[in-house]
Structure formats: C-alpha cells, structure tokens
C-alpha cells in the first residue's frame, strides 16, 4: 500500500491579539492508501487544525505535508482549491448542504468546479447517490430529508470526484445512535472498496469502527495504534432492537 499522506514536523501557530497559540507542535504522521483512521482528542487538542491542513483548507506554519507525492504545504490558494476539488472529499458535522438546492444538485456541485463540464454530471451524481442508498430521493431538498439522509447526500457529494481521501469531521455528531451506525456502515463499505477514510470523533464508540486510532493532546500525537478488531456496523445494526413504529 502506497503512502498517501506524509506529514513531517507539521506545526501551526495562531496569533490571537498578543497571544500565540500553538495548535500543532511538530506532528509526524503517515497514512497509507486504503486505511481507515479515527482521530480522537479533547477540544483544543489540535485535531480540527490537523483536519483543516489535511483538507488543504489551511496552510501549516511549519513543516511539510505531502499528499499523493505532492508537497502541498507551499501551494497557493487556487492550487489548494483544485486539490480540494479533485483529491479530497469532505463530510462535515452539520452536513453543509446548500439549502435551496436538491440532493442531486448538491451532489453535483464539485463537478461544477472541476474544470470540465460534462453532460454526465447528472449520471455521475445519480450513481453516487445510489452508492449511499438514496435512489429515489434525487429531487428532494435538504429540509425534506432526515439528518441521516442529508449526511448521505454529503457523502455522495464527497465521493463524486473519486477523491483519494475522505475527511470526515464529527460526521455523526448531529445524528442519533442508529443513524450514526448506518453512516459508519457506509464508511466501512467505502473503505472496503479501497477509499481511504480519516475521521475525527470524540466518541469512542464511533472510533471503534475504524481500523487505526490516533489520539491528540495539546497539539501532539500521544497514541497511534491499530485497532485489533474493529466493530462491524452491519452486524451492530442487526443486533439493535427494531425501530419502533410511530404511533
């Protein structure tokens, strides 16, 4: 398995008035193709900062970040935007769908900024929505979809450009238990297909579905170990009590 992400001595410092905040202090990390990584840590530990840098939304103050062999740490805004478009798929805690736009239009969105406009856009979007189990709901608006369904649309959107890596920031934060496991089921299915997934969570429960567990504290990695027996979401769902019918 090739190395997808290599981080050398990554540092990020923010200036807040007179104070300097060292969000990341010399991180070293490598993630290979096809891995499923969970990053945990208390707030302020630097995990979100790392996520932003991994996602090319932010640039490090020091150190290097190689994505798929490219030194991303020194690229300009426009180049970073291209990489976000083609190599990275984001999934956010609050879904971040465009509100007055249908599911299929939301899913298609990254294709608009792709540089090539294909008439295949709708077909690609439909395929992506199928992959997350949303056939039939292409023309629904986000306010007509449940939290779980909205997150699925977000995942479909993240997938549409066949990215090298999916970055999920607390993807289950706004979902109930059952729906959270359904979402983890999707992630595990995608990972089976070979898609690399990095997700941030503060729930041990959710992290246990991943294959590798990294813990952050005060801007440093304090633990980095493989999970011996990851939970299998499909099985967990079968074990759960059936959904109670609404009265």
């Amino acid at each position, binding site marked *: 398995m090739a190395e997808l992400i290599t981080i050398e001595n990554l540092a990020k410092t923010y200036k807040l008035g007179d104070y300097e905040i060292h969000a990341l202090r010399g991180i070293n990390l490598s993630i290979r193709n096809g891995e499923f990584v969970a990053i945990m840590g208390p707030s302020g530990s630097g995990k979100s900062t790392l996520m932003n840098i991994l996602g090319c*939304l932010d640039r490090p103050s020091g150190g290097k970040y190689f994505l798929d062999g490219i030194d991303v740490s020194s690229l300009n*805004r426009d180049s970073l*935007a*291209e990489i*976000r*478009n083609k190599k990275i798929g*984001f999934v*956010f805690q609050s879904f*971040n769908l465009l509100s007055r736009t249908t599911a299929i239009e939301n899913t298609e969105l990254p294709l*608009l900024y792709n540089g090539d406009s294909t008439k295949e856009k709708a077909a690609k979007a439909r395929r992506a929505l199928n992959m997350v189990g949303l056939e039939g709901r292409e023309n629904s608006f986000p306010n007509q979809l449940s939290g779980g369904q909205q997150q699925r649309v977000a995942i479909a959107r993240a997938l549409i450009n066949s990215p090298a890596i999916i970055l999920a920031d607390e993807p289950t934060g706004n979902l109930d238990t059952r729906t959270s496991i359904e979402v983890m089921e999707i992630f595990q299915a995608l990972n089976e297909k070979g898609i690399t997934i990095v997700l941030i969570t503060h729930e041990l429960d959710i992290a246990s579905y991943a294959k590798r567990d990294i813990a952050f504290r005060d801007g440093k990695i304090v633990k980095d170990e493989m999970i011996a027996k990851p939970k299998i979401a499909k099985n967990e769902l079968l074990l759960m009590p059936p959904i109670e019918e609404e009265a």
Partner: protein
Amino acid sequence: MRYLQILKIAFKALAKNKMRSGLTMLGIIIGVAAVIAMVGIGAGAKNMVNAQIASLGENLLTIFPGSQSAGAFHGGAGSRTTLTEEDARAIKDNCSAVVAVSPVVRSSAQVVASNQNWGTSVEGYSTDFTQIRSWPLAAGSFFTNQDVSGATKVCILGETVVDNLFPGQDPVGEIIRVKKLPFKVIGVLIPKGQNAMGHDQDDLIIMPYTTVQKKIAGITHVNSIIVSAMDKSKMDLATSQISELLRVRHKIQPGQDDDFTVRSQLDVATAVNSTSSVMSILLGAIASVSLIVGGIGIMNIMLVSVTERTREIGIRMAIGAKSRDIMIQFLSESIVLGLIGGIIGILVGVLSARLISAILHWPVLTSGLAIAVSFFFSGIVGVFFGFYPARKASLLDPIEALRYE
C-alpha cells in the same frame, strides 16, 4: 463552459428571491426610464422646432426695424417706422445673393362672414410670399402683382378661419368683411397646425401688403421684410449685402448702430439647437443620478447577500471553488441585475415617452443610440457597484466562512 454554468447559478439565485431582486432593480429601472424618456422628449422637441424652422422657408432672412438691443423680436410690435416697401424693392434689385423679397405688414381684425364672426391676424405680403414661405394653397389661387399695385380687397384664409367662418363649406369665391370692408376669398392655405410655441399657425388671413397698409392698418411703412437667399451657403453674403444697402439707404454713418436687424433662420435654428442640446444634456445628467442611486442599491443588496451566504461560500470553496469562481458568481448576479433592470427601464422609458407624447401632444423621438447607451451603462453600473461585494466574497477564508452561523 464552467463560467456559463456559474452564470446560470447567478440567475437561479436572483430568481429565488424575486421580490428582493425586483426592488433592487427599481433604481436602475427608474434611472434608465427617466434618461430615455427625457432624452426622447428633448430630441422630439428639437426635431419639431427644426422642422418648423425649415417649414417657414429655407434660406429665410427676416429684417426687423430697430437694432438688436432694442428688442426687435416681435414682428408685429413695431412702433418703428423705419422700414419701407422701397427698402424691399431696393434689396430685390441690388442684392445678388437674394432671390425673393416680400414686405410684411401685420394687423388684426374682426372678420365676418354671413352670421359667423371671428377675430384673427391679418398679414400682408407681396407675391414673392409663395417663393419665400413654402406654404402651398389647399384651394383657389394666390393674389397677383396687379392685386398688389391696386391694393385690391382679396384675401387667402388659413384653415382655422375657414373652420370658424365657413364650417364644412368651400370659401373660395365668397365675400367676407374685414374691418367692415368687403373682401373676396380667393384661396385657402394648407393647414400647418400649432408651432413650437403653441401658436396656431392657421389662424390668419393673407392679403396684398398694400391692402393692409391702406385699408386695414392705415400705415405707410412695413413691419418687417422677409427675404429668401439663393441657398444656404449664400445666407451670410445676403445678410451683408442687405446690411450694407440699408445702411446707405437709411443714411447711417460709419460707427453708428444699424437701425434694423437682419435675422437668419439659420441663426435661430442654431440658437434653438444649442439651447435644446444643453437642456437635453442637463436632463440626462439629472436622470443619470438616479442610475447611480440604483447602483448603490445593487451594491448594498449584494453586500447583504454575501454576508447571508457566507456559509454557502465556505462550502463552495471547501469543495473546490477558487476565488475567481466565487467572484464571477457574485459579479454575475450584480451584472444581471443591472442589465435586466436596464432592459425593463428601456421598455418603461419608451412606453412612458409614448404615453407623454399621446397625452401632452409633445413630440417624442426615442433614439436607438440612447437605448444602446443606457443598456451599456446599466451593465457598467452592475459591474462597478457589484465589484466590491464580489471581491469581498472571493476573499473569504473558507474555514471562517464554514463556521459562520
């Protein structure tokens, strides 16, 4: 093309809130409509005045008694008696640049025909009138040189007089009483309607100037002299020839002011044109202020829109939109607002110009140039006033934008 799709997105975004888009465009609409209507009215007036000046007779020169500073503007006012028919004859005989000359004698009188009664103006000319004034007859014939030398009591009626004295009838051959004297109607002038000053040009009778002098007004001088120059290029020459001749005839010493004024239609036309041009420009400038206000409205709404959609901008950037994409998206919105506002404004402007024309009977000329320029400027307003908000949007930091509530 990617930018075409972004343009489509801009359209959709504007359509999502039609009320807001409509209100924002209102400033542009009003501004453009005002410019088009006012420029149209100005152009129409100018055109009508020019047409009327031309219709009075090409190459027309008018000689008034009294020097310019003595306010010799009103042809009939003359308390001055310095111009005579001999002056007119001398001009015709001696000025080579002149082809036709007619003395002008003006008065007013009550005119009676059977049981109808009408007060009107009486104007006396020589037979050169037809050559000078380009005013054809609708019926009958003009008077002759014999009529002039004999001061015969013949007259030609204007349409308004006919309508009042002989409604629905042919007046040629009839006898009317002018100042109680019997006159034979020998012709009718074609109608010309109101002139630019609102004066009814058809409310008059024409007769030999000698008749007016002797039988109506009881004077021996003439109120003015009208002259037709050979052609437009000879106007200045004719003017100087006439001036020289009259100075000699009136025994004016060098250094003394003329006791007459020679006014060329060309000068009148030029003066009117420049005045109306200034008026048009002024009106246009005032109306343009409305366009600027409209632009400020666009900028205001776009700033609000950008703030409202901060999250959306963050999402787009996160999934790969570059600064330029965001910039073009929002700039497209403001340009579309400007252009559509411009189009609607042009329609409203043209329609209101027509409406004003129909109601007030003012002539209106909507020029294609005004329309094209207005459209262009409404686009410019969209670009100029939309630039700052669009730039602001494009420079947002995606991480901050995503956090925005």
